[in-house]
């Protein structure tokens, strides 16, 4: 204990942000939000079919999600108010440093006492474990070293940067209850120590931000779906799954232990399975659902193993705050963290659609469009990103992010940005383009976290949720109008005038996605590029120059493929056969709201040195609200300095790319108004281009590899071989053993028992007649035969006598 706490107190004071402990009834009881959604699910499941007029079952879901949204917004509001209030107080009192080893709720009222005890219990106990760990010399040494570096970093940070100075950060509010306990593991623990497993909630900037995003998008999707899925064959199931999905997503977001996180993680996976396969009568849909689930399961191997490694590394606890605390304070060995981070990265790759496990995500578009917006763009797919953020210290140290030019996580992210973006160019289905765009944008988030730009990653998650939901719902509106088709080439074109509202909102979403000033995506993408530290004088955590370049290429691609979509859908001539028009109000208003948010959310985190004095006063709010205090349960990361030149370059690259694509289509249009691609293009002239196109068209052949190289052999030859082995080798051994013993039995019976033993006593009774089988042949009944035998025998005897005598 002594080594541990002294290490903390010496260095933590120097390295950490100043922090305060927010407290509110809401923070300790955020579990209400998922509970409401769960209740809604159970209600719909049990009574949905008998609900008065089952077409109105959405009322249940809508009511629940409205309540959840209201509570989430209130929680966020309280969080912000307390934070801002504290800043005011802070100027009066100088130090608000609290013992970092106790990260717990401070309860105002008596009712909260229980909560206080349990949360103290939850963490205090695991800190004891941490002490045991840290008292080990090796760990203590690690702790000293790490803190040394940390403090040196911060000295620079605080001295030159000045960002974050004067702010005191809000600590997470953790509340846990004992879930269950079991006997512990070998060694001394076999003496009867028990392992306690906790279930609980963490309310901090990150989770509250996510809470708002999930409930908000979910609310709009609930609303939108009332029209979009109207009259569907499984309306009730649809709403039940929506509720369950929201509940499990929130459960995951709020989880205070990694075990709970796994539970939530898998539950959202199942909801995704159910919703992708919503129209399961058609085989492609259920295939897509299976693919999504199985690909995620592959990643889950990493999740399970990674969490197990962390569990033991942190002294047998699943508690997220303890793990983070130990990681920051050197309680986890480097190997543990590296192995865990790599394993968890696999999970992120599958869940958040990172290259090379992204292949399920585009297929997941088989589900209803609002679901695609909710699950496969805005919320569930960012679960992986969220998980990295939740266990950021593990990744930070495990991947050695600081001061490095490259690491696995960031590289995977960057590769996804480029790889996903390239694929978006060859899609004809508007939803597929958006799906690949999502893949690419998720790559940005992972890239950001991989280079240490935590806030930028989270901020991009936040803004992306709004503009991508806006785009997806817009695509839904297009399909709603165009005969339930998503084919840009066959069914759309020139919709600008026919569907003005859809056009306007889609356009805003696109601008935000592309990252045009001042739309939301501009700010978040810019921060990510800054965060790579590849650009001169950005002073970020590392020097990820290569990744900065990949990020810029990604920005250019984004602009390119989105321009293509815009042109194909809204410009040129209408190529469809119906009369498309704007959707009804319940579908229109969500679009408008989301478009509005796509414009403004970026300003939540504009850099401090922009807009003169405004920046230092209102800039970087998102960072202040969301980022946890550094040095306690969060690594001491550095925030890059925003760079005007980089922002200009990024925008210029995007504009140039967009202009190029635009010119291409303009020329095409001039030649033939209804054309969607050049007939005699580069592809037919240049082999390389043709090859590249084929590569993209076939999605880098990854699907073929997985299907042909893994899934099919598994299902086919390998499974059959195993079964053949079973039937013809293992079972055959059994059968042969059985047959052999049966044969042996017959042999013994016939020759030994009946032949020898019984035969030797055949003088008596029936056994004699049985055994006389051989003699029977002699016994012909003919006197002559007997006589000849008798005489023969007599002659024989006579001969014997003669010879013997």
């Amino acid at each position, binding site marked *: 204990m002594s080594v541990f706490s002294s290490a903390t107190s010496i260095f933590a004071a120097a390295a950490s942000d100043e922090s305060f402990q927010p407290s509110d009834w809401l923070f300790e009881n955020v579990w209400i939000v998922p509970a409401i959604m769960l209740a809604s699910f159970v209600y719909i499941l049990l009574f949905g079919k008998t609900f008065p007029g089952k077409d109105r079952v959405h009322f249940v879901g809508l009511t629940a999600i409205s309540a959840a949204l209201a509570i989430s917004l209130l929680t966020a509001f309280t969080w912000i108010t307390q934070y801002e209030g504290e800043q005011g107080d802070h100027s009066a009192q100088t130090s608000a440093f609290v013992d970092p080893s106790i990260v717990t709720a401070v309860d105002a009222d008596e009712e909260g006492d229980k909560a206080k005890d349990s949360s103290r219990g939850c963490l205090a106990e695991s800190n004891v474990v941490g002490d045991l760990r840290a008292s080990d010399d090796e760990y203590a040494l690690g702790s000293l070293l790490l803190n040394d570096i940390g403090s040196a970093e911060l000295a620079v940070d605080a001295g030159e940067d000045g960002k974050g100075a004067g702010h005191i950060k809000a600590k997470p509010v953790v509340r846990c209850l*004992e*879930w*269950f*306990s*079991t*006997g*512990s*593991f*070998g*060694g001394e623990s*076999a*003496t*009867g120590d*028990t*392992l306690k497993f906790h279930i609980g909630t963490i309310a901090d900037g990150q989770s509250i931000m996510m809470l708002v995003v999930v409930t908000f998008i979910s609310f709009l999707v609930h609303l939108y779906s009332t029209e979009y899925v109207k009259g569907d064959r499984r309306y009730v199931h649809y709403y039940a799954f929506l509720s369950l999905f929201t509940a*499990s997503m929130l459960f995951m977001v709020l989880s205070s232990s990694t075990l709970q996180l*796994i*539970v*939530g*993680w*898998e*539950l959202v996976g*199942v909801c995704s*399975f159910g919703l992708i*396969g919503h129209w*399961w*009568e058609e*085989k492609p849909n*259920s*295939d897509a659902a*299976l693919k999504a*689930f*199985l690909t995620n*399961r*592959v990643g*889950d*191997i990493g999740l*399970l*193993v990674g969490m*197990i*490694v962390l*569990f*033991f590394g942190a002294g047998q606890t699943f508690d997220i705050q303890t793990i983070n605390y130990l990681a920051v304070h050197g309680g986890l060995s480097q190997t543990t963290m590296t192995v865990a981070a790599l394993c968890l990265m696999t999970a992120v790759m599958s869940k958040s659609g990172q290259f090379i496990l992204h292949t399920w995500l585009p297929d997941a578009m088989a589900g209803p469009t609002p679901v695609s917006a909710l699950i496969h763009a805005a919320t569930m797919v960012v679960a992986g990103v969220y998980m990295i953020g939740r266990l950021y210290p593990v990744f930070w140290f495990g991947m050695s992010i600081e001061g490095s030019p490259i690491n696995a996580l960031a590289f995977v992210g960057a590769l996804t940005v480029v790889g996903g973006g390239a694929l978006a160019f060859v899609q004809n289905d508007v939803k597929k383009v958006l799906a690949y765009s999502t893949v690419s944008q998720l790559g940005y988030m992972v890239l950001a976290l991989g280079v240490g730009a935590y806030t930028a990653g989270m901020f991009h998650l936040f803004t992306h949720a709004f503009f991508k939901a806006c785009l997806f719902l817009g695509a839904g509106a297009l399909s709603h109008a165009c005969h339930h088709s998503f084919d840009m080439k066959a069914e759309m074109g020139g919709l600008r005038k026919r569907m003005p509202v859809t056009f306007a909102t889609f356009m805003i979403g696109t601008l935000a996605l592309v990252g045009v000033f001042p739309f939301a995506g501009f700010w978040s993408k810019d921060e990510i590029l800054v965060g790579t530290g590849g650009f001169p004088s950005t002073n970020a955590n590392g020097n990820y120059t290569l990744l900065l370049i990949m990020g810029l290429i990604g920005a250019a691609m984004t602009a390119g493929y989105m321009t293509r979509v815009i042109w194909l859908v809204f410009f040129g001539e209408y190529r469809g056969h119906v009369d498309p028009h704007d959707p009804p109000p319940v579908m229109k208003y969500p679009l408008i709201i989301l478009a509005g948010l796509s414009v403004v959310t970026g300003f939540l985190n504009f850099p401090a040195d922009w807009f003169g004095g405004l920046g230092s006063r209102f800039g970087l709010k998102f960072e202040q609200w969301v980022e946890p205090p550094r040095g306690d349960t969060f690594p001491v990361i550095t925030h890059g300095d925003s760079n005007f030149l980089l922002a200009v370059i990024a925008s210029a690259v995007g504009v140039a790319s967009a202009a190029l694509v635009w010119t291409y289509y303009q020329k095409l249009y001039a030649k033939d108004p209804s054309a969607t691609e050049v007939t005699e293009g580069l592809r037919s002239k240049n082999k390389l281009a043709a090859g590249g196109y084929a590569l993209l068209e076939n999605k880098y052949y990854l699907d073929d590899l997985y299907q042909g190289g893994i*899934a099919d052999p*598994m*299902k086919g030859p*390998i*499974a*059959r071989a*195993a*079964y053949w082995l*079973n039937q013809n080798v*293992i*079972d055959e*051994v*059994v059968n042969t053993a*059985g047959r052999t013993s049966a044969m042996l039995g017959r042999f013994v019976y016939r020759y030994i028992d009946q032949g020898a033993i019984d035969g030797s006593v055949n003088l008596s009774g029936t056994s004699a007649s049985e055994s006389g089988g051989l003699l029977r042949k002699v016994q012909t009944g003919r006197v002559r035969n007997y006589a000849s035998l008798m005489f023969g025998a007599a002659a024989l005897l006579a001969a014997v006598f003669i010879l013997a005598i």
Partner: protein
Amino acid sequence: MTEFLNDWGITVLVFLPLVGALLMMFIPAKDEESHKLIALLTTVATALVGIALFSEFDFDRTADLQFDVNTSWISVVNANYHVAIDGMSLPLIALTLLVVPLVIIYSWNHIPDPGNAKMFLMLILVLHTGMLGSFVAQDIVLFFVFFEVVLLPMYFMIGVWGGPDRLYASIKFFLYTLFGSALMLVAFLALYWNTGSQTFDMQELASLVAERDIPLGTQVLIFGGMFLGFGIKVPMFPFHTWLPDAHTQAPTQGSVILAAVLLKLGTYGFVRIAIPILPEAAVEWAPWIGLLAVIGIIYGALGCLAQTDMKRLIAFSSVAHMGYVMLGIATLTPFGINAAIFGMVAHGLITGMLFFIAGSVKDRYHTLEIKRLGGLLVQAPKMGWILGFCTMASLGLPGLAGFWGEFPAILAAYNPADGVSTSLFRVYMVIAAIGTVFAAGYLLWLLQRTAFGTPSDEFADDPEITDMNMTEWIAWTPFLVLIVLFGFVPGIIFDITDGAVVESLKTLAR
């Protein structure tokens, strides 16, 4: 009341079903309704006795043997009638008490060909006694007797009411298990002689083995005998081949009981007898058990992928699932064995449920060939969703019971007991984790091919294909509720088993 329960509770619990069976002997076979009624009432009464016992059970000291009755039985060999309940056996007893009445309810209108409800139900009752007896026995001779009592009714159930290949399957089941039991008996006797032939009592044997200083080689051999006996029952790879045949041919009720309870006799034997009595040998055997367990996980999954028959697929999945249970046991840690017991209960509920569904599908479609099925969700939506739910539970979805048997076992493999190779078990851990993908693969593939899609022309307008009926609802609902309940509140089982498990591993710590 308490006194009565203390002295007679367990005895009544175990032999009440037998009394019911005796009563049924005197009623003519034609009167099927009263047979069903008597069987149901008997099992419900047994369950009530069980509930009374559980309510008197002291959950604060689950490590102790409670309602302990120990009287002389075969005094010549010092075998006693020693029965008791502790935290380790309680969940399994509860499972048995739950499953059997529900099976009888299900039988109400599902008596398999060639009929004869009287004999069928009597056999189930005899089976009931055998299973309960095995779980309460604290004396290995008594355990052995009950262990064998179970065999015969099951043999007849498969052999008489089974499918077309029933004779082969039933004889294979009987002989294979008997073969294992024979070696087990040898092991028991070896134990008896080596400890000075004073007792067959499990607890006394455990302390005697520790005192007597029996050579490790001998212990390992004795453990080997038990390993074969229990391992065949589990069944572990490569002794599993009786299982798919037995399951495929058995009537639905037989399959359910087989999956839900009988297989657990093997794993229960490991945690109750083999490991506590021979801890040192267990450490020697653990890497091999672990190896066979993980082979079983992958192998069972591959076997599933190759199946064309729904019931056979579910049977093969048992091999994989019991692999997780055995992996948990092989770690020899309290956590792993807790997980294993949880896994036993979870597997009992989930696979039992899957067999129920397979039986009901067979009733409606008269086939279980996966190729011919499809669109169950269209024709019988409720049953289809329940199938979906059960496949999800079976593939170890968190929030449902299956997860708590699977994940903790994988977790435990990261850090096995002292003396067991850690690095080896970490390899096992990764293989077991990969096994979860396979599990998802074959189960969802099954779901896709049977429930999703549209029904084939063959069955499209078949009036016999109806959704769930009343008896199915009554029989299945408790399963479904418990799967969810255990999934969210795993503490229910962990809290009960933990004390007893820790206690049973004390011999290991010495």
